């Protein structure tokens, strides 16, 4: 089937304004009659729930943590983009739009990206009004820094804790609506199913993680803002609880999963130290503003302390390969370059999987105090984890799975192909194409939540009768029974290996075969291994504890079960996409000097996969991408 993104036609500059005008509205006095479920309270979900509450809808918000403020958006460090052009350095909505399309390697929809760029400026204003303490200069005006993939300074930040401050802003707006009675919060709830009645999303089934109770919630619309899925690689920069579960349950109920193979491997993470590691820690890529990446030129130098390696024996490989962007090359490029150096035996540190990020020159130029002011908390974090002082010796970094560009397919209104199901933030696929630029995810989450969904959801709600289907409908009962049966099954297998052991195993396959570089051979190998491990999991997993109380082993087992099914679709998507673009690198498709080679003739489309059953071939639906405002070009950062 050919999918239609329902993008407005005509001049792009006015597309969002025209669309807003043409969308239907819900009468103010009717709004409270509509119940909206919002799963997720990160930047996207938190902002959406708060804004919809302000408008007067009856909103119910859900998260798996004990507080809405703890969603993983909290961990974002570096910053948020906006086209304010405060530094007067040539930025504009058009440039942010262009950079995002190009950064995404021409695999995103123009109209969606235009809207994102347009509302980016409103986000900053909104956050300032909420009291978000953005960094300021001595005159009292907002400060900016530059970020990978851009030649202008358009990134706003709050020390190294931008995500935290933005999320606390959204959380405060949400708290205000709780007090006002328009939003009801359901913490420590995990959504375990989407309830679909006659093809329309009507509610969710979730587990109360404290009591184990299986609850049914009905809503006139369901919003998923449940974050990304890169924990499919086991080790990643995501929080331990991040999962694909909510999105995957929706996929099992008919929502299409778009471009799952577009995963981002972030270049500046602390390298792995051992087998028992539970996660990888990101250090903001803003570090690349002042840090220089290098490895020794000679293999025999790799074991020597970095201070003893002479300047002429160092290979500043990003500056060498990409003279105009240098250390600020986009993430996919920087990550692959690091991997190349290590594959070439010139890596450093344990297992030789690491490259140096060196601040010596910047410290010489700006002084240690300036560097501390800019990145103090990152240096502190680095030292806590590695016991090394980044001011005195270069840091060691290595790429790690970080972000999911792919996600549930949505149209221009952020509605999935299942009517009534909306998807926001990292959980959808919409704006980043095959690669996301730094500081653009926070922008997307807040754009979707504050400025897009309040308009587009009205267009849908205006066409439905409030409360038409409630939780007394048979589908709710059926869904709850399926969820219970799945839990009982997991608890009853009583095998020999724990969920975390299986997760590690899956992660290993995904990292090695479907990680930074993919080939037909590696992907086919993964497609053989994933079902094998999945089948073993379902016959040999050991989940201790019971369902009727707090049980983290059970939570993990359930999430992993979904990762298994999802991993297969991700790998199939990677196999289908016979080209290299952005974060998706197929070794068969590269230029002579190792750059990604797109195939616009055959693959200039969004791949949206329809789940047809476990172990059954999924069906591919295509949404062709049209570029009318930017010219399809080979992406170059040289």
């Amino acid at each position, binding site marked *: 089937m050919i999918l239609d993104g329902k993008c407005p036609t005509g001049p792009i500059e006015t597309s969002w304004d025209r669309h807003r005008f043409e969308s239907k509205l819900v009468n103010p006095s009717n709004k409270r009659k509509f119940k909206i479920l919002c799963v997720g309270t990160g930047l996207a979900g938190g902002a959406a729930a708060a804004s919809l509450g302000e408008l007067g809808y009856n909103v119910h918000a859900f998260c798996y943590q004990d507080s809405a403020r703890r969603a*993983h958006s909290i961990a974002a460090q570096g910053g948020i983009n906006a086209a304010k052009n405060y530094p007067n350095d040539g930025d504009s909505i058009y440039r942010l739009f262009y950079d995002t399309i190009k950064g995404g390697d021409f695999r995103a929809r123009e109209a969606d990206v235009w809207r994102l760029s347009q509302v980016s400026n409103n986000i*900053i*204003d909104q956050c300032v009004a909420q*009291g978000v303490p953005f960094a300021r200069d*001595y*005159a009292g005006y907002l400060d900016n820094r530059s970020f990978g993939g851009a030649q202008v300074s358009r990134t706003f930040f709050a020390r190294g804790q931008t995500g*935290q401050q933005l999320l606390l802003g959204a959380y*405060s707006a949400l708290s205000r609506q709780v007090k006002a009675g328009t939003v009801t919060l359901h913490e420590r709830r995990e959504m375990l199913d989407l309830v679909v009645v006659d093809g329309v999303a009507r509610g969710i089934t979730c587990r109360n993680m404290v009591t184990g109770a299986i609850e049914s919630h009905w809503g006139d619309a369901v919003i998923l803002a449940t974050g990304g899925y890169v924990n499919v690689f086991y080790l990643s920069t995501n929080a331990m609880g991040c999962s694909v579960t909510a999105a995957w349950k929706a996929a099992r109920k008919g929502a299409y999963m778009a471009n799952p193979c577009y995963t981002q491997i972030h270049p500046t993470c602390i390298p792995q130290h051992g087998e028992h590691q539970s996660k990888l820690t990101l250090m903001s890529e803003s570090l690349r503003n002042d840090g220089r990446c290098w490895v020794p030129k000679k293999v025999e130098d790799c074991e020597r302390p970095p201070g003893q390696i002479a300047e002429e024996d160092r290979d500043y490989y990003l500056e060498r390969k990409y003279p105009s962007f240098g250390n600020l090359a986009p993430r996919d490029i920087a990550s692959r370059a690091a991997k190349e150096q290590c594959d070439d035996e010139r890596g450093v540190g344990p297992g030789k999987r690491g490259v140096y990020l060196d601040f010596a020159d910047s410290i010489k130029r700006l002084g240690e105090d300036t560097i501390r002011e800019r990145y103090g908390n990152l240096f502190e974090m680095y030292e806590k984890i590695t016991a090394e002082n980044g001011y005195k010796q270069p840091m060691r970094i290595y790429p790690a799975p970080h972000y999911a560009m792919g996600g549930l397919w949505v149209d221009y209104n952020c509605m999935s192909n299942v009517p009534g199901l909306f998807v926001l933030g990292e959980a959808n696929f919409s704006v980043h194409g095959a690669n996301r630029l730094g500081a653009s995810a926070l922008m997307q989450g807040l754009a979707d939540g504050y400025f897009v969904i309040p308009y587009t959801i009205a267009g849908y709600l205006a066409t439905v009768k409030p409360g038409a289907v409630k939780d007394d409908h048979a589908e709710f009962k059926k869904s709850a029974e399926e969820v219970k049966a799945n839990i009982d099954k997991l608890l009853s297998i009583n095998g020999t290996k724990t969920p975390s052991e299986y997760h590690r195993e899956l992660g290993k396959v995904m990292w090695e075969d479907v990680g930074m570089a993919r080939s037909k051979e590696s992907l086919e190998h993964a497609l053989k291994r994933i079902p094998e491990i999945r089948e073993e999991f379902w016959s040999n997993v*050991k989940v*201790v504890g019971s369902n009727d109380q707090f049980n983290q082993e059970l939570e993990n087992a359930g999430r992993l079960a979904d990762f298994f099914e999802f991993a297969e679709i991700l790998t199939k998507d990677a196999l289908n996409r016979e080209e290299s673009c952005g974060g998706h690198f197929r070794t068969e498709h590269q230029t002579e000097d190792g750059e990604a080679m797109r195939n616009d003739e055959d693959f200039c489309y969004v791949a949206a996969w329809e789940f047809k059953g476990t172990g059954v071939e999924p069906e591919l639906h295509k949404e062709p991408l049209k570029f009318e405002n930017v010219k399809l070009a080979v992406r170059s950062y040289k």
Partner: protein
Amino acid sequence: MKLKLHVWRQNGPNDKGRMEVYDAPDVSPDQSFLEMLDDVNLVLARQGKDVIAFDHDCREGICGMCSQVINGVPHGGQERTTVCQLHMREFKDGDEIFIEPWKARAFPVIKDLVVDRGGLEKIMQAGGYTSCHTGGVADGNALPIGKDIADYSMDAAECIGCGACVAACPNSSAMLYTSAKVAQLAVLPQGKVEAHRRVMAMTEAATEHGFGNCSNHYECQASCPKGIDVKFIAKLNREYMKALIP
């Protein structure tokens, strides 16, 4: 290294709870404290025994989810460090470690080391915000804010809402947590407008939800993983006085 752990086990809110002893026979100094517990749990799970429940999520010291009292000190006593960022190189071979949940009237135990911190939410909901509506606000640069003020506000805003300050306080006071939000907003032009109403509502909510008063022990600051300064409590008190005098 080899460690002996004494861990609080409590099978639900109504269980009495007790300390139990576990061996951690093969701990690497590079592991984080939670990774060490993961290993202990792996052994328990393989034996079919119930694992030690503990809250955690980001494991980067920012979400505020992790919450354990280690050797009597919330977060384990390393300066500016959450449990998840505590590394085993801070311990030595043969150490005995005592691990307990946050202990405070306002934080009932859910299971083992997991507690219910819902009271902290109520304080925020009472007034921890500026009442601005989405859209229709001024340009971000319309109001210059001195760098010193922005920095002060940011210092306060670093609070991760973990509740260690409450757990450390002999009175189970949430004053440091509350003051961080009050101070962050009170110094900003955007927050000043509602400063009086905010400080009254938030302190009232703290009392209503079982948090005690501040009697200047300053244990809160000592255990705060973000180094939130007690000067913000002084600021809260000043704001409170200002609100009393119309």
